[in-house]
């Protein structure tokens, strides 16, 4: 919450890291929980995914993604840009897998929210520190539709 340019989410799965890794890196599995796309586990590989537009932030929904780096069954870093406007969004998603008991804790760090972009920042504010600035009703409704 202290860094206005990141989001962190984590969750526990009662499955070993090797299996979670498969779900993160096999295209047919990725399509089942995220979006279809031509993913390949290879640094520098670029691919697109069609997601939902996020009107409140001006995000078109077409993701231009790139594999930035990985460490087998431990870390996967993906770059996300808006395919419609590559200047507008420049996010980095870092998935980190940590063995926990008989399962895996999966961390997602979503970085790159532009503090100078009022739309991006406003959307992020609602998440990270909505209690800091509040949000106009109209925007809240927009967000509800996403």
């Amino acid at each position, binding site marked *: *919450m*202290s860094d206005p340019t990141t*989001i962190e*989410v984590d*969750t526990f*799965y009662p*499955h070993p890291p090797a*299996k*979670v890794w*498969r*779900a*993160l890196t096999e295209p047919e*599995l990725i399509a*089942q*929980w*995220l979006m279809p796309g031509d993913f390949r586990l290879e640094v520098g590989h670029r691919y697109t995914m069609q997601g939902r537009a*996020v009107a*409140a*932030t001006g995000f078109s929904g077409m993701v231009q993604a790139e594999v930035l780096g990985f460490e087998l069954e431990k870390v996967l870093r993906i770059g996300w840009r808006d395919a419609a406007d590559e200047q507008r969004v420049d996010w980095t998603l870092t998935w980190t897998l940590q063995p926990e008991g008989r399962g895996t804790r*999966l961390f*997602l760090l*979503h970085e790159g929210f532009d503090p100078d972009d009022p739309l991006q920042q406003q*959307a*992020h*504010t*609602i*998440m*990270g*520190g*909505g*209690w*800091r*600035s*509040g*949000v*106009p*009703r109209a925007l*809240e409704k927009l*967000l509800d539709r*996403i």
Partner: protein
Amino acid sequence: MPRPSVVAEGTDDRVFAALASPVRREVLRLLRDGGPQSVQQLADHFAMARPSFSEQLRILREAGLVSERKDGRQRFYRLEAVPLAEVQDWLSPYERFWRERMAELGAVLDRLEDE
């Protein structure tokens, strides 16, 4: 912390204020993951004088995020889900997006096991 200039209807200022502290969020996480616990059990996780820790609990209590039950000389705390659910509704499209996707990922993993 600056006061919110606009507060959405149906959201409670005290809840948001209570969540604005890493210590208090950690208390909520401990209660979420470990179920109801005594003040002593919770306090053990923090290098903080007891009166200061009690003050953190009071803020959480007044926000309705936790409730207290006395059992003999011990006081037990539990998480109250309703205010948190309201906050959840209010969260960013991104965090909501990822939470939903990660839940789906869990479903994918559950199905994989059957193969």
